[in-house]
Structure formats: C-alpha cells, structure tokens
C-alpha cells in the first residue's frame, strides 16, 4: 500500500504501461517463414486478431505467450522484453486453441495444480479456485474429472486457468470454435468482463466474435498484417463496395465464380446475394448496401490481393 502511494507520487500513477508493442517481428519454422515483419501495438481492452486458417494468428499468439521464439524484431509486454520468458508468463494468461488437461484430475484439482505452477500460495489459491469456478459456472462440476467435461465446460476451465494468477495480459486462441451459440455468447461476455482492466487478445476466424466484443482489430493473412485499426474504420473502408442483388437461381454457379459472395438468401426461383466488389457488379437489381463487418473483412482480404472465394460450386 505504501509502495503504491510512493509510486503514484513519483511516477504519476501508472505502475506499468499496459500495452504490447510488436516491432518487425518474424518467425520461422525451419526454413518456412510463418510471420513476416509484424508491427502492432495493442492497448488495454479487447483486441481482435482476425484471419483465415493458416494466417499465422496462433503462431503470433504463442510468440506473445513466450511459447515460441521470434527471429528478429522486438516484442515488449507491459515494458518487459519477450526474452524474459519467466516474467512474461507471470503476467500472461494463455488459453490455447486446443485446451486439454490431465484427464484423471478433477476440475478443481486441475485448476489448483495450474495455480501452483503459477506460483500462487496455497491459501490464496484455494480462494481463487472457488471464485473462478463460480465465475465460469463450473462450481457444480468441480468434482468431475477433466475427461468427463463437455467441450464447452473444458473451454471454461481453460479460461479459468488462464485467469488463475490474475494476469495483466490474456491471450485466447479461437476460444469459441466448436461452441454452441449460448456458450459462445457466455464466453464473449466473460471475456468482456475481464477485459475491463486487462489487455485481452482474442484470435478468431469467426467475425461474429469480433463484432460483439472488440474495438480494435488486426487482420492477418499468410503471416502478414493486412490491416489494423478499429472496427468502424474497417467497415468504413468497405463503404461503396458491398452490394445486394436479386438473381435467378440458375445463374448462381456463374456468379459465385465471378464475384465474392458473402451471403445468399433463397426465395422461390430467386436468390438475394450479397457481393463484395470494387465496382458495381453487372447484375440485375443491384443495390449498394450498408457494409457489415463480415463483408468489410472480405473486402479487406480482396483488396489486399488475397485469393478469396465467396462460395464453392
């Protein structure tokens, strides 16, 4: 308490700048380059990392969690260089894409064990385990073994273990993949709650997750940052490039070949299609439409030269 007051007097209050700075970072797997000169600054709150499968999101997340070593560039997490892995891990909570724990451990025991690995003293650990299990709605399942938990429950356990040591930075890699809509909403709400005083980096390929929770995002593809900014800016960029058309169903295969189709709604013999295009498509009944995040994302990929198909034949 005294130390904190002293710190406020001397340094004006901010004990530690809550931001992650990534400058010119590259990463190789053998000879294959997975990340190319990544430049990002991530501040407090929810930050979304959007991209296709294989874009490099997980690689970047693991590098930030000090699980992978970068080659070239600099990363600092709240002022601490990434090379100080132990310090980084002390202030970072990580939920991997494919979370799992020792199957024979009970839920509370698994959380307790991971808390011990995080260096939390016993008395404190006991309190936090109960509180977190309650927070993630697993308190009634605390005596179930990990292997007996459903996919959604496991994911909740995963978020609980990532929070057990009250980290400054929370890194969650595709946390809602495979969850039902209710679980997904619950998860997002939980993340928003914890993001109030932390940096939360959420990587996903589900646009809906970003839309619901993040203000700032970056889009990745093939190991590069294609775009970074706010969600509003991304949507604004796509203004004038999202169109809706009513076309006959029999022309759909051809349309899908020629244009980027982001949505289809069939009605009798006609289909209402949503198209992303640089200019107005040469189709009947075409109307310029208010862009949404999904269309804006697809437009971003397209305008960056990515090979994007809106639908298969």
């Amino acid at each position, binding site marked *: 308490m005294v130390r904190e007051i002293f710190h406020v007097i001397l340094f004006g209050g901010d004990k530690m700048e809550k931001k992650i700075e990534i400058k010119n970072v590259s990463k190789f797997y053998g000879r294959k380059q997975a990340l190319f000169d990544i430049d990002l600054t991530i501040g407090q709150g929810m930050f979304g990392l959007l991209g296709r499968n294989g874009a490099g999101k997980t690689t970047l997340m693991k590098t930030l969690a000090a699980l992978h070593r970068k080659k070239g560039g600099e990363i600092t997490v709240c002022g601490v260089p990434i090379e100080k892995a132990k310090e980084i*891990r002390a202030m970072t909570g990580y939920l991997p894409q494919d979370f799992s724990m020792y199957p024979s451990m009970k839920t509370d025991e698994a959380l307790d064990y991971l808390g011990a690995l995080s260096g*939390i003293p016993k008395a404190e650990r006991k309190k936090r385990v109960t509180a977190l299990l309650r927070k993630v709605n697993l308190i009634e399942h605390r005596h179930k073994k990990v292997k007996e938990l459903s996919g959604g429950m496991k994911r909740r356990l995963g978020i609980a273990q990532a929070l057990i040591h009250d980290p400054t930075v929370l890194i969650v890699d595709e946390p809602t993949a495979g969850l039902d809509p209710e679980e997904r909403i619950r998860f997002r709400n939980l993340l928003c709650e914890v993001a109030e005083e932390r940096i939360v980096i959420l990587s996903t390929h589900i646009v809906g997750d970003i839309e619901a929770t993040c203000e700032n995002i970056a889009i990745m593809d093939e190991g590069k940052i294609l775009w970074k900014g706010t969600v509003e800016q991304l949507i604004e960029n796509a203004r004038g490039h999202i169109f809706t058309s009513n076309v006959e169903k029999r022309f759909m295969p051809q349309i899908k070949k020629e244009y980027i189709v982001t949505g289809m709604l069939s009605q009798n013999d006609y289909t209402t299609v949503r198209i992303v295009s640089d200019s107005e498509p040469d189709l009947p009944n075409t109307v310029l439409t208010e862009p949404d995040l999904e269309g804006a994302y697809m437009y971003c990929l397209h305008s960056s030269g990515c090979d994007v198909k809106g639908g298969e034949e």
Partner: protein
Amino acid sequence: MVSGCLAKIVSSDTRHNYVLHYLAALGVVLLTPVIFGVSRLDELLAAQPLEFFLPLMGAILMPAVFMPEQNESIREVVRSKKTPYLGVCFMRLLCGAVFITALTGAFVLYMKSMDSVVTMRLFAGSLASTFALGAAGFFASAVSDNVIVGYMTAVIYYICNFGLKDKLGVFFLFSMTTGSFEEKEWLCILSVVLVVSGFVLRRLFRER
C-alpha cells in the same frame, strides 16, 4: 510459498501420472528375492541382484518423465505457466531418483540382514547402473518425444550388456559381478551427460 506450490505440484503430479510407475519399481524390488538368492552371498554374488535386476527401476521411472505432456494441448497449457516446464520434469526426475535410492538402500539392508556381504560400494555401484540405464531411456524419450522409444532404448542398453559386453567397455552395467568397480564412475558421468543433454536438446528442438 514456494515450498507450498512445490509440494502441490509434486503430490498432484505423482498421484495422477506416476502411481503405476512407482508401483512397478516397487514390484521390481519385491520380485528380486524371488528370482535371486539374497542370503549368505559373498560380494561377487551379492552384486548379481543389485546389478542385474534393481537397475530396471531406472528403466521404468526415468524415461517416463515427459509422458504426461505427450499430448501437445496439455503441454502448451503447462508451458505457459510461470514454473518452467522443464523444471517440473526435473522435479519428477529428482523424485524418481530419491525413490530409487531409498528402495535400493532398503534392499541392501535386507540383504545385509540375510547375512550377505553388502558394502557401500555395492550400493553406490547399483545406483550408478540404475541411473545409467534410466538416463539412456530418458535421453531417447527427451529427444524423440516418445516414451515408448525411451523404454525401448533402455531395454536395448540392458540387453547389450548380456550379448555385447566387450563392445560396451566402461559402460558395462554388470561389472561388479566380475569384481570390477572402475566402470561405475563412467556410468555416473554417462548419467549426468545424458540427463543434461536430454534437457538441453529438448529445450533447443522441442520447446521452441
């Protein structure tokens, strides 16, 4: 605080991941008097159970150090914590070593109570063989990330001592039964080298 966490890590880890291994190692010790005579043995004959059979404890416990995290999903979670993952593995190794030493010591005392000539150098020599055999399996397991390969390597090293004694030279495990103790120093060095290099190589190539 540190000791509280350590105790929790060790007890949970042992209970959930290694009970069978410790019991198998205990089984080796309990089976030894069934297979070998342990009473009224001179030093050469007393070396037989201590060299031929007790070292199998090392082959059971040491290669399995990385086994619980063969599932990469679990490994990522454990690696993301403040306590270094290889530190947890080292603790497992240490617990195994303490267990082996205690069981070997107990067995030696039992042999002594059965009027066998058992000396300190026999006890130390047995431990050297045990750790060397275990370290061979540990190294293979660390580098290949496959516990079966670890067990295989330990068994191969064990069999070589029956058929390729001349080629093993100073790394011969059963030297005490021929009255020689020089090889034990080399086995100690081998154990240390294999364990250290196992950890180093694992960190370099697996924990990138």
